[in-house]
């Protein structure tokens, strides 16, 4: 008893830390330095490494010795931890603990294009000079919460900006002060794809803009470091100073995770990336990287299924994620991906441990779970051996628990941080479970204590009659109040707690007489603590490709196929061939002719059916997470390839309309847009595999109302007139050409001369525009009225290149001969007009008139809906322009292939070209025609006959998961109101913000 209070005293003394070299004026200087010994514990040094009966010697917040047998200095305070477990405290590397979130600045009416800081980088969203520690405010409420989760050290970052500056490493030690608990004031650097809330500068407005900005920043950093700049930039200087710090990327959704990995790789950083929790959905992509992913475990909760109108509209993806997300960690582990566990968005510690247990029940090894909370995060920020481990030299951060940490009944009693004890749960550490007897006044009392380390359960009998007892543990004593109903009497018992049970008791009997009685333990509990029945695990629904509606159960395979007896629209000089067979082998068109026969091929009877090349859409905005970077009037540095969304359902919908290849163009928010992505609609394949291999490079330009911002708010971005649009082009081409010259000159220098010369600034935007000048990149230009079309051709001619395509080209018919002379093609709408002023003179005869004048013409969609029926749009060239069916069909196949300069690979049925084929039930130009099968490179990605079966199987999966959710509710699991998720359909004019 005395010993106990003595220890208490010491702890209090130890907690009033002060720095050695600080003067003291409120007391005398007393610096008592003692050792602390944790003894007799089961010590989990690190995952899988256990010392039974282990001891840990601590001094000055660090572990000085660990083992089962070592000599202990005299000035040591000992803690007996018999029967208890000691684990390293957890580490979270992506915390916002104690950081100050900036408030949202009021938005001014007009958009801001300039940066608002002086002496820093040109973009306000690069806050590399910011140090989280400067605004750090130790939050005791939050630290207590985190210690309950088991965390001892957190790496913190303010979540604001694209470049977020430095973070700090902080120990959650309430009992010292910042001088001790800040382990590293500048521990890491952090990035995101989100703008700063504090600044209104318009750029970047998109994810791809944020990516380009980061790339440019690091190019600029190098150039600055080499002495290229004549001015001072404190943002760059800070980033130079912090260059070698570990990097952390706040990504967002699962596609952004891959983007974060990719861009980190490009920048030469092995960033730690904050995951989405759905890593299992694109694990193949992740396998290419060995970065550490910090994964949240706030698994989706089951939906409350009472609102039937919402429930029936829930998507398969939403439902599947509830079912599958708990398997995320085991999938990461099975695929050898480094991961750490983040407590982000988890409500409380019981949910936190519940969800870890859930992961374990899905197959995760508990040592791996522990590693993901300790050594993995520690290693990721170069703190291996210092945190997340119980080891000599490490910080004395450890948890004291009643048993193996992830077991349901286990209690965390204490979370020691920096050698200071923090109580987590104020219950007896030692089990006092047992049956105790004592006698008083001729009566025999039987006291039964159960589950003393959890919620204490006490029952008391007086001469075999049960009494009504209320109990509570307070200040190390078990206090009980007793009601003897029969005699209408009250009494009180208070008992000390010893290491092996209850000690003597003070008994205030029913007459109010105080007594001290010795307790006698009559035996251990006969009934063991009831184990809570482990829930049957729900059946895990397999991941499909993609893991949502219309996903393939297994990826479709390349097939060798013989289409028999089709009407074949070759698109070549062979024209339309009746009763013809086409052989597909190894993804290519192998041969075609009459009555072909081969063995080992799948034969498809195409009698009365039409076989064509797949449709190519020159102008699409589907399958992208971002479409416009309108934050500047030129955004040549951004690329749609960075933001391809390979799981957009519109890909599948396009396949149902016979589309196989699309160009995803940047939008039309600015005269010089971004680089485009040409993709094949290989539904279910990985992101990278959709990119059209060996396709030439394109960029979107735009003219007219959109770039002048005529139809939306901004009045202060140059240009506001078509006159200004020309000047933007001339200015950029002029500068790019000078830029190019400067680099070429530099590149010609000998190695020795190069060493003496500072390299020119590398400017991604100028690089891309210079590619145009060097004919390595082609322009697809959004265009409306004849004046501006003519203008761009003249600008191009002045700079010695040819515009490749005018897209939209609504007044192309007015300048067709000029286009022909320039050598530019037109990708038009068939019949759109009347939606804005500049389309007043758009006519449905446009395409055919251009064709007549010798211009290469294609019809495109610019629309997720219309793209599914480009065959019908092509037919309008027959109606309005009296084109032959054969020529009209080329408007959506061979001609767009030529415009995209991929006609050597796709666009027609020609031996050696890609087997991108569509089988139609009727003449494909007929309004009644439907695509029956759509093949890309020998793989059937869409088959109309499968739709009903797919829908049925989707419904069955949904029903299965819904029944599991009903079961979950019955089991008392928490449920949430369901919401429907809708994805935005992007158009040319969609202006986004990434807040």
């Amino acid at each position: 008893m005395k010993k106990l209070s003595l220890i208490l005293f010491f702890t209090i003394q130890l907690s009033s830390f002060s720095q050695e070299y600080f003067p003291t004026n409120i007391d005398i200087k007393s610096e008592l330095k003692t050792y602390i010994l944790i003894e007799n514990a089961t010590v989990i040094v690190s995952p899988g490494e256990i010392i039974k009966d282990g001891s840990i010697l601590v001094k000055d917040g660090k572990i000085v010795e660990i083992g089962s047998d070592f000599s202990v200095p005299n000035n040591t305070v000992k803690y007996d931890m018999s029967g208890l477990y000691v684990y390293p405290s957890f580490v979270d590397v992506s915390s916002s603990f104690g950081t100050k979130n900036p408030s949202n600045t009021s938005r001014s009416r007009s958009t801001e294009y300039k940066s608002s800081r002086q002496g820093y980088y040109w973009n306000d969203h690069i806050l590399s000079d910011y140090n989280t520690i400067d605004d750090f405010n130790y939050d005791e409420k939050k630290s207590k919460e985190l210690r309950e989760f088991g965390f001892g050290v957190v790496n913190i970052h303010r979540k604001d900006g694209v470049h977020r500056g430095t973070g700090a490493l902080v120990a959650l030690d309430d009992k010292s002060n910042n001088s001790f608990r800040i382990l590293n004031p500048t521990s890491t650097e952090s990035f995101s794809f989100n703008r700063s809330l504090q600044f209104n500068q318009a750029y970047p407005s998109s994810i791809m803009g944020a990516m380009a900005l980061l790339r440019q920043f690091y190019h600029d950093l190098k150039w600055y470091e080499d002495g290229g700049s004549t001015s001072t930039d404190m943002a760059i200087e800070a980033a130079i100073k912090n260059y070698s710090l570990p990097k952390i990327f706040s990504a967002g959704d699962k596609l952004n995770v891959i983007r974060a990995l990719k861009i980190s790789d490009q920048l030469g950083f092995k960033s730690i990336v904050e995951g989405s929790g759905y890593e299992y959905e694109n694990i193949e992509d992740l396998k290419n990287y060995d970065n550490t992913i910090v994964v949240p475990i706030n698994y989706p909760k089951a939906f409350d299924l009472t609102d039937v109108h919402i429930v029936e509209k829930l998507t398969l993806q939403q439902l599947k994620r509830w079912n599958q997300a708990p398997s995320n960690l085991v999938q990461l582990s099975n695929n050898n991906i480094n991961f750490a566990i983040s407590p982000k968005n988890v409500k409380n510690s019981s949910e936190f441990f519940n969800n870890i247990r859930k992961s374990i029940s899905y197959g995760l090894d508990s040592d791996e779970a522990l590693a993901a909370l300790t050594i993995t995060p520690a290693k990721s920020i170069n703190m291996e051996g210092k945190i997340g481990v119980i080891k000599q030299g490490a910080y004395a951060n450890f948890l004291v628990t009643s048993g193996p940490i992830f077991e349901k009944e286990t209690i965390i009693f204490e979370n020691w941080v920096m050698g200071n004890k923090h109580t987590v749960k104020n219950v007896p550490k030692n089990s006092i479970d047992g049956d105790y007897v004592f006698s008083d006044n001729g009566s025999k009392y039987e006291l039964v204590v159960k589950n003393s380390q959890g919620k204490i359960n006490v029952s008391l009998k007086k001469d075999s009659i049960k009494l009504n007892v209320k109990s509570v543990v307070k200040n190390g004593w078990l206090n009980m109040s007793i009601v003897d109903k029969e005699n209408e009497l009250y009494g009180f018992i208070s008992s000390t707690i010893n290491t092996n049970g209850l000690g003597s008791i003070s008994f205030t009997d029913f007459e109010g007489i105080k007594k001290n009685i010795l307790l006698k333990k009559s035996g251990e509990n006969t009934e063991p603590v009831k184990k809570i029945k482990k829930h049957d695990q729900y059946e895990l629904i397999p991941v499909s490709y993609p893991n949502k509606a219309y996903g393939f159960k297994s990826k479709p395979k390349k097939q060798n196929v013989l289409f028999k007896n089709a009407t074949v629209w070759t698109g070549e000089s062979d024209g339309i061939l009746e009763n013809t067979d086409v052989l597909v082998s190894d993804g290519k068109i192998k041969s075609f002719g009459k009555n072909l026969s081969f063995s080992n091929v799948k034969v498809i009877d195409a009698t009365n059916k039409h076989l064509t090349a797949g449709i190519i859409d020159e102008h699409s905005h589907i399958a992208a997470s971002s479409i416009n970077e309108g934050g500047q009037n030129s955004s040549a540095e951004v690329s749609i390839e960075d933001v391809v969304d390979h799981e957009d359902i519109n890909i599948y919908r396009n396949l149902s309309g016979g589309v196989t290849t699309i160009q995803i163009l940047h939008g039309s928010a600015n005269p010089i847009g971004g680089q485009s992505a040409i993709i094949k609609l290989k539904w279910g394949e990985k992101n990278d595999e959709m990119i059209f291999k060996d396709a030439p490079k394109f960029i979107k330009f735009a003219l007219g109302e959109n770039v002048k911002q005529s139809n939306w708010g901004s009045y202060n971005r140059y240009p506001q007139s078509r006159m200004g649009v020309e000047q933007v082009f001339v200015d950029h081409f002029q500068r790019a050409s000078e830029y190019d010259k400067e680099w070429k000159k530099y590149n010609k220098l000998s190695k020795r001369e190069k060493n003496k010369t500072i390299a020119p600034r590398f400017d991604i935007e100028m690089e891309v525009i210079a590619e145009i000048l060097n004919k390595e990149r082609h322009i697809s230009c959004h265009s409306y009225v004849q004046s501006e079309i003519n203008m761009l051709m003249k600008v191009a001619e002045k700079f010695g290149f040819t515009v490749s395509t005018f897209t939209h080209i609504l007044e192309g018919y007015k300048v067709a001969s000029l286009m022909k002379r320039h050598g530019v093609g037109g990708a038009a709408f068939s019949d759109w007009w009347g939606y804005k002023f500049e389309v007043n003179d758009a006519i449905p005869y446009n395409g055919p008139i251009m064709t007549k004048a010798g211009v290469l013409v294609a019809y495109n969609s610019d629309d997720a809906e219309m793209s599914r029926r480009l065959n019908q749009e092509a037919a309008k060239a027959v109606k309005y322009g009296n084109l032959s069916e054969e020529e009209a069909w080329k408007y959506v196949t061979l001609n767009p292939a030529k415009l995209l300069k991929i006609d050597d690979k796709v666009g027609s049925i020609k031996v050696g070209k890609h087997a991108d084929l569509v089988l139609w039930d009727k003449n494909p130009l007929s309004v009644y025609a439907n695509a029956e099968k759509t093949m890309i490179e020998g793989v059937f990605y869409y088959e109309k006959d499968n739709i009903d079966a797919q829908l049925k199987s989707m419904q069955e999966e949904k029903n299965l998961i819904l029944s599991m959710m009903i079961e979950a509710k019955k089991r008392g699991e928490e449920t949430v109101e369901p919401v429907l998720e809708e994805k935005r359909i992007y158009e040319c004019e969609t202006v986004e913000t990434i807040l």
Partner: protein
Amino acid sequence: MRKIKYLIICFFIFANCWSQKQIPGDDQNKTILLYNAKIITGVGTVVEDGFFGFSNGKIDHLSISKPEKKYDLEIDLKGQHIYPGFIALNSTLGLVEISAVRASDDQREIGTFNPNIRSIIAYNAESRIVETMRLNGVLIGQITPRGGVISGSSSVVQFDAWNWEDATIKYDEGMHVNWPNPYNRPSRWSSGSRTVTSSKNYLDEVNNLKNIFNKALSYNSDFSKKLDLKLESMKNLFNGLQTLYLHAKDQRQIIDGVSFFKSLGIDKIVVIGGDEAHQIIEFLKNNNVSVIASHPHRLPSREDSDVKEAFKLAKTLVSNGINLSIDVRGGMERPNTRNLPFFAGSFVGNGLDYDAAIKALTINPAKILGIDKDYGSLEVGKSATFFVSKGDALDMKTNILYHAFIDGRELELSNHQTKLRDKFLEKVSRNN
């Protein structure tokens, strides 16, 4: 060769090639007989190689046999097709010229309840967009105001007129109600998506709507009242002179709306949109409600939906006995209204019976609009409002018009667009 074909088209459409606007056709002063054509009557019958005569704006002969009477003009159509003029429902043609130019937009008034608003007085009979309709066979339209919960009343016009008065076939034939949305769909997107929830205001909004209808009902049965423009304008709903158009996509909207209006004794109820109508077939049948179905050129409602969902709606409705017409509302709806025949064609491509598709463009809308006595089908005694197409008018490849008539008046088929075509074809032919 191609040039010659262009010339042929030009020849058929040549009248007043360089006028600024189409000039409305003159009253029929010669009797005309068209023969050797395939006549699609609009009431489910087809007359092959038929004789089609009309005089004084009315059809006076339609049969496979030659009439005894001699006509002033007798024209051999050699396998061409004759169709009744197609009817566009729920259209804002003539109310907006250029969507992005606010000054040209007259389709909606501010406020929630605008029963007193009349679309017809804003209808621009000279709209350049209207001009382009007739070249695809769309000759009649229901001009409908938008916005609010009660948008106002629509009128029926024909597309060859000097002014709105001249254009009108029927005034204020319907009142348009946009039933409140049971879902809350935020207009802001966050990182490319948004969440939709059940609306918390649905009942309140419905009750407000019910309130004004209940008020109107009591107002219109009281004769000693002070004039209230809004309530007064609703009186024809209660005496059966006006149709109630219920704009509703969701099944709850349809059921709640139809049930309420029926309870007020309103019998003429037509659902516009009806994306989920196929889920409540029995209800619609029991209540004898026609559906003006959303056109098929729209995306499936959810990512899990049948990829062909929008294309299949019409077939499901018709095969279950629902009276079908087609809604032209949607993206770029005014310019796209000329694609109305192809909306029907797309439905046919996905299972709808061809006759049913034709009816959905002709007699069904005429009946809904209450103009079927004169319009909506080719029958002796009815108005000679029809067009002549090279072939099947529901298919783009063959929807090539040679003639069109409204009330026997031959229409000029040239328009702003054909004039530009001709001008620049001339430029191409001069090789400059």
